[in-house]
């Protein structure tokens, strides 16, 4: 890295909150580092200090309880998520999106929380979390607040997190457990690539829920659909909700076409 920044590694929530309150906009939170460090290297961001959140007590790993559901903490990497037996058994959509994220080495560092807080419109994890009715738990020295996922994203790489706050954990409710779901991601190669367009589809209790990435400034949630709805209706709802652009990766036309293709494919392949 060329830019000189201060490195801080708080050990407690209190320390972390105090640092954020103190430095807020000049600080960048470091969890996996796979987005932040690339951005620093490329000169996209120049934080005065980088705060490593992985040493904070209480930020490790992933747990499950019957009341709350899945609690994914700030230190939980994508591969930690994939290794978790409960995730594999009861949250197949989460596993599907995680599985397609970047490469194995990246997944050993990148965190679910970090991926979501980065808020790229291409986020693979966001697509799943939208369908699973997940909630973001944001904390600061002023306390904690919860934000449901659709409301979490505000724009390209913009979320509701304020400069003195941290996305501390993500709750995937117990009520979403057992819901079948899958993710289809258009890539330029079979190897690791960001989503040119991505569709997550979940079926639960007669409902269909969609999460679509790389088709709008933020990942998009499409609700209000039923498993009894004809495929054309589901497709129309999906296309209605997105406004993909043409860029050097793909044209708008093909993105729209592949959203259709993926929605139809998933409708057939996801049980329920």
């Amino acid at each position: 890295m060329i830019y000189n920044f201060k490195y801080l590694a708080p050990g407690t929530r209190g320390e972390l909150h105090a640092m954020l309150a103190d430095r807020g906009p000049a600080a960048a939170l470091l969890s996996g580092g796979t987005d932040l460090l690339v951005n620093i290297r490329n000169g996209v961001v120049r934080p005065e200090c980088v705060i490593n959140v992985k040493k904070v007590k209480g930020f490790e790993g992933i747990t499950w309880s019957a009341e709350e559901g899945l609690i994914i903490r700030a230190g939980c990497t994508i591969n930690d998520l994939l290794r978790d037996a409960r995730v594999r058994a009861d949250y197949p959509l989460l596993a599907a999106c995680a599985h397609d994220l970047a490469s194995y080495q990246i997944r050993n560092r990148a965190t679910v929380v970090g991926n979501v807080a980065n808020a790229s419109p291409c986020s693979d994890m966001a697509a799943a979390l939208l369908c699973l009715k997940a909630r973001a738990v944001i904390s600061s020295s002023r306390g904690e607040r919860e934000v449901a996922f659709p409301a979490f994203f505000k724009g390209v790489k913009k979320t509701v997190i304020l400069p003195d706050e941290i996305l501390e954990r993500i709750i995937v409710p117990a009520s979403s457990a057992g819901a079948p779901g899958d993710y289809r991601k258009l890539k330029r190669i079979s190897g690791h690539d960001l989503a040119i367009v991505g569709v997550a589809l979940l079926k639960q209790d007669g409902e269909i829920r969609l999460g679509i990435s790389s088709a709008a400034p933020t990942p998009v949630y499409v609700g209000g659909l039923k498993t009894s709805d004809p495929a054309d209706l589901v497709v129309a709802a999906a296309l209605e909700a997105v406004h993909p652009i043409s860029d050097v990766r793909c044209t708008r036309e093909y993105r729209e076409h592949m959203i259709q293709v993926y929605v139809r494919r998933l409708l057939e392949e996801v049980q329920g």
Partner: protein
Amino acid sequence: MKIKLTINGAAYEKDVAENSTLLRFLREDLGLTGTKEGCGAGECGACTVILDGRTVNACMVLAAEADGATVKTIEGEARNGKLSDIQEAFDRHHAVQCGFCSSGMVLSVRELIERNPRPSVGEIKEGLEGNFCRCTGYTQIIEAVLDVTGQIDRKGEMTHA
């Protein structure tokens, strides 16, 4: 700032710049140049090392973050001047050409077969997708992994996915 870590079984205590990556620290501060830089942006895997038991791109880890950690680099793969089983399999199967990706590739294979002792061809491909190779076309690398995991013999070839 000072960091303490274990690399290839040896203890180190060193002063590092706060903005130094683990990759730069290994190569420039410690002279362990076996780990290579291919892109500096976490895409190519040439800088793969094993950090606390998991493969990572060292260019995407700050040296500071490795304080208290256990690191394995390619220099720790051979023991007492003898190639490891993976290195020997690579050698047998001509899985090395220019060699620049080899350090990262060998460590990715090491971690892969430790967590999955009998990976299928598909699992090998997925496990290695984060390690670019421009020379070999990957096939002989995959064959080396199949060999070292007892799935093909010394001169075996992979013909089907």
